[in-house]
């Protein structure tokens, strides 16, 4: 069976709308009968990624592929890139400004949390070009 594929634009200028794509994906996965555990893992990881795209990269694009064995989420942005991925993966390390912290984010838990909730995570990033996150959660 071929995978169901969904594409979303993540707007970069509107923090209040961040999470709309993840919310839609969560509902679709539920309707398709994926396990609550898999649904929750995808929802949290993708939501963190979406927030990151809005905070750091001016938005981007999300592609979600659902097949019976696994859910693949690709988040692509043309943002500033991550100069030091190893550092960015450390819990508590954050470059988010205070304005973001006042909104309840930027505690330096985004990428570590994405890693925690996914079964596979690959990050492709280049400074000045952008970042792409490839996430995989087994169904």
């Amino acid at each position: 069976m071929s995978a169901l594929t969904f594409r979303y634009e993540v707007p970069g200028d509107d923090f209040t709308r961040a999470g709309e794509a993840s919310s839609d994906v969560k509902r679709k996965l539920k309707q398709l009968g994926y396990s609550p555990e898999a649904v929750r893992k995808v929802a949290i990881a993708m939501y963190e990624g979406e927030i990151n795209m809005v905070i750091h990269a001016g938005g981007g694009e999300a592609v979600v592929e659902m097949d019976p064995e696994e859910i693949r989420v690709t988040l692509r942005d043309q943002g500033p890139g991550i100069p030091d991925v190893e550092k960015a993966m450390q819990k508590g390390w954050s470059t988010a400004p205070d304005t973001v912290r006042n909104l309840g984010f930027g505690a330096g838990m985004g990428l570590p949390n994405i890693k925690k909730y996914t079964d596979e995570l690959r990050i492709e990033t280049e400074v000045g070009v952008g970042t792409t996150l490839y996430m995989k959660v087994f169904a």
Partner: protein
Amino acid sequence: MTVKEAAQILEAEVLVGENLDVEIKTACGSDMMSDVLAFVKDQALLLTGLCNPQVIRTAEMMDMRCVVFVRGKEVDPEILELARSRDIIVLKTKYRMFTACGLLYSGGLRGESGSL
């Protein structure tokens, strides 16, 4: 404890939600949604002083049933609309965070058992 009992303990105003007979066993209190996403497990009720739509989104992603805004915050109608569409109960209490958490704890509600 049910959400209804929690609302009574907090002398809370119900902003969204009709059926309050929802059972909750554990709760958490935080203004950092990053931390909620990172550390919360099965807590069904979130107390927060943060007032933006991402509070509801966070609750939605974490399968939480109820959000309590503390310190008598004015809550934007847009936030309430989002909660309504996601079937999340919203309460508002005049108590501050520490007191609100303490009252619920004294009433029998617990946090996550154990440490990280």
